[in-house]
């Protein structure tokens, strides 16, 4: 059983506009990829990603599993723009990744691989 997880750098995502970034994430997830984003999504980006996901849900794609730790502290640009960003976001297809436990400090997830 082989499980692939893609770690996406902050530089890669920073080079994309919001719409491009979310489209990239959703396209990768729809291909079955599990992504770990070095720089997490803002709450607004998370909501937008949920909206975009819902537009794509069908009989073969049931949606996403997403987990983020929101940062308590905002950086300079966050304070300026009033946006709180997740420290890290994990996102994958709902049929491949399942959160089994979560509290404010720990996320436990199971990745389901096909034999």
């Amino acid at each position, binding site marked *: 059983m082989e499980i692939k997880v893609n770690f996406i750098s902050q530089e890669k995502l920073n080079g994309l506009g919001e719409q491009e970034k979310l489209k990239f994430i959703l396209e990768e997830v729809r291909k079955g990829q599990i992504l770990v984003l070095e720089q997490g999504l803002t709450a607004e980006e*998370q909501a937008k990603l*949920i909206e975009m*996901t819902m537009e794509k849900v069908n009989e073969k794609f*049931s949606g996403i599993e997403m987990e*983020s730790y*929101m940062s308590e502290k905002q950086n300079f640009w966050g304070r300026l723009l*009033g946006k*709180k960003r997740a420290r890290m976001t994990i996102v994958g297809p709902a049929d491949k990744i399942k*959160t089994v436990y979560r509290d404010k400090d720990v996320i436990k997830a199971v990745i389901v691989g096909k034999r």
Partner: protein
Amino acid sequence: MGIFDKLSGWLLSIFGKRHVAIGIYGPPNAGKTTLANRIAMDWAGDVVGESSEVPHETRKIQKKDRIVIKQGKASLTIDLVDTPGIATKIDYHDFLEYGLDEEEAKKRAKEATEGVIEAIKWLDNLDGVILLMDSTKNPFTQVNITILGNLEARELPFIIAANKIDLNGSTPATLKSAFPKHEVVPISALNGVNMDLLYEAMVRKFGKKRK
């Protein structure tokens, strides 16, 4: 500003009478429609919609306008907006377990996805939100975190209502410790427990003029 505006502004600041649009948000099956019905029955003698154990029963925005909530000399007029549950995934197979046939389940799933989109878009039309969580469940879900983050980002006043305190396994204290910076009101929308506390919080929080 005329003298009438000044006088009405002064009276508003004292008695807090305002007309605001308040949305009820949360994950599916948190009891949003049950709460909307409880509020509408208590103050307008009417219901907003039907509730069900099958998730995503509410798949379109439901509204009840001009509900007047009174607290002593203060009152608050609200347009109550009951929203579809927000989810990151909707699998029609889940509905089959509730006895729906395949066609019904697929139709429900499709409508539910549209409902999620509509609920998120409606955040832009509101003056305040009741974020409803099921107090028998872990509050640290992505849906709760995402809604809360969006309310904070939009600077929308909100109250967290910890619902289903009538059920075994309810731990409203867990919700309070999970969100220590926010007001959490433990309620049972079904049995009407602590609704007086929620109404007091609503008039106090949503009656204030937003900056």
